């Protein structure tokens, strides 16, 4: 069983490296790859909240599961807003 902290650390590291690679590649290939890299960069912190939520749920820590759900809800609302 991997600890919550280790899982989050892994997600953040993978997101950081992958997004940097895509953004770097995009410089040579095209802006649509840069777009993908920037999107991945922004979604990485989202992913670590989702992972934390799952971990809290599996530990039956309902209070912190709800806290994670609220953060995810706000992030989803934010990503749907248009101006």
């Amino acid at each position: 069983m991997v600890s919550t902290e280790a899982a989050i650390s892994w997600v953040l590291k993978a997101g950081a490296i992958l997004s940097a690679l895509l953004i770097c590649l995009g410089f040579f290939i095209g802006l649509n790859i840069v777009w993908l890299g920037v999107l991945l960069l922004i979604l990485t912190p989202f992913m670590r909240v989702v992972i934390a939520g799952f971990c809290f749920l599996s530990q039956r820590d309902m209070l912190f599961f709800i806290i994670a759900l609220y953060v995810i809800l706000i992030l989803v609302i934010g990503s749907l807003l248009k101006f």
Partner: protein
Amino acid sequence: MEPLMLIFILVFGVFAGGFGSMLGLGGGVFMMPFFILVLNIPAHQAVALSLLGVIASSNLAGSIYIRDRISNLKLAMVLETCTVTGGVLGVFIALAMPVNFVKILLGLVLIYASFMMIKGSRSEEILVQREGRLALSGEYYDDVEGRAVKYSAIRVKVGLFASMFAGAISGIVGVGGGVILMPIMKLVMKVPMKACAATNNFMVGVTAAASTIIYFNNGVVDLYMAIPTVLGIMIGAYVGTRLMVRTESALLRGLLGIVLSFSGILLLLRAGGILVW
């Protein structure tokens, strides 16, 4: 845009990411005045780019601090409920206000940050212990002192209020999630300095992401300029975190503090129409 400009941004990003992570302020405090005063980039666009840099360095530093359990995950999650809410609200406040509002607020935040930086943080730490479900206790191993440090965060309500404010400021001016929250966490919530800095580094990414996703979906992020900004700050933050230069150096803090207050004053003068270029 010419390649020279991209290299210029990349080099400055390395500098901003490096010093930002060493001082625990994040690269944004240096990127924002650079974008607005030197490159003359429109304010909202500069904010979106700076926030991308904040996310990039937080992903990197956060992965290290959470692995080493110096970041307090539960404390971070509780405060994040308010920082992300503030982060979303901040974007809409920024859009509703005239552009000069962003510059004035940024100027004030920079001057505040420079004061915090020059003053340093040498006040005595009093650690509190609490029990209970929402005690938000933490424990980390301090390798300088060679012992485990145990603590509990207190006055969580004040912390939540400050988090909302910090999130909004960060969404409006692209800086400051950490600058505003750090002193509150340390002085009011009684979280020890090392845990404070690590938890903040971990939190600012999600706070900035809440604002950035809105700017990104509405086409405010300039992808071309995002390349050197993100890569530069990541290189700088990586080197800065690795070097672990504990910037007790009063001279460095002082010099960078002066640079920050000087840019803050320039921003205020320009927003007031006293300086034009």
